[in-house]
């Protein structure tokens, strides 16, 4: 993947497929601490220990078109290659939590990329899921809760193109003010 934001989109799509009601996306970047970290937590169907032990193997997937699944192995490899860590934990019926961190100044660390675009793509595809997106930098913190957006919109669906465009601008403006997503 060219950007970490694409990994986020990919991993969060697993949560969507796990029928999550709430998906939390935490991005944290700190030049002071020399770390970028990504946490994706959902309350979807989860996995048993057996499956959990196997998901970092590229030859394990839930998809039916082919016998390879690369989303999790790709993220794990990128984290490990940049002096970072990868962790996945899950409980059947409770949900799944994926953590990856990267050394910010490592030469091979992919750029964070367009996180706003990732978040709106997710909202667009699954307007009924509640997304909690938090982005933290050394300058401050930004949070978007789609529940709050829904309260303003009433019966207008979140995935109306006009709402999506507004959300993209809203996220980008807020990221700019905390100097997020630039590295």
């Amino acid at each position: 993947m060219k950007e970490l934001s694409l990994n986020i989109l990919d991993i969060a799509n697993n949560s969507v497929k796990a029928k999550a009601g709430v998906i939390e996306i935490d991005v944290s970047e700190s030049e002071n601490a020399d770390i970028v970290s990504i946490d994706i937590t959902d309350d979807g169907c989860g996995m048993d220990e057996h499956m959990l032990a196997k998901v970092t193997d590229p030859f394990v997937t839930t998809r039916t078109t082919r016998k390879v699944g690369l989303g999790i192995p790709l993220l794990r490899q990128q984290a490990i290659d940049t002096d970072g860590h990868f962790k996945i934990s899950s409980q059947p019926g409770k949900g799944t939590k994926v953590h990856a961190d990267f050394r910010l100044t490592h030469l091979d660390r992919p750029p964070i990329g367009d996180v706003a675009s990732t978040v709106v793509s997710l909202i667009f595809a699954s307007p009924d899921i509640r997304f909690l997106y938090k982005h933290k930098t050394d300058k401050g913190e930004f949070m978007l809760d789609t529940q709050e957006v829904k309260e303003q919109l009433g019966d207008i669906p979140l995935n109306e193109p006009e709402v999506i465009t507004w959300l993209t601008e809203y996220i980008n403006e807020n990221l700019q003010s905390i100097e997020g997503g630039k590295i």
Partner: protein
Amino acid sequence: MKSLEELRAIKAKMQNNVQLRGVEDADSVIRVVVGMATCGIAAGARPVLNKFIEEVQNRGLKNVLVTQTGCIGVCRLEPIVEIITPTGEKTTYVKMNADKVSKVVHEHLVNNRVVEEYTIGNADK
């Protein structure tokens, strides 16, 4: 700085449109399906999806429904986009990018002319 309250203005404006859409729905909807599995995302499906959303809004195409799907099965040809007309005819576009999206929206969605050069039938020629 934008605030969430601005959404109320969008809501007020949208309410008329939504009613409008309800009337012409069903029989006239063109579906645009973008493949968004790992293979699609890695190949650049996200900008393709976002370009479709942007074009559909800018042109006010009320009869177009943009959606996503998982892996379509021909990963080497991603990003893949399927366009399904109200009569059920399906066109599969392959190796898409944002520039190609503009042309497909203009030709196919607006003028109902398939852009043959981007279709799967022309992929290996």
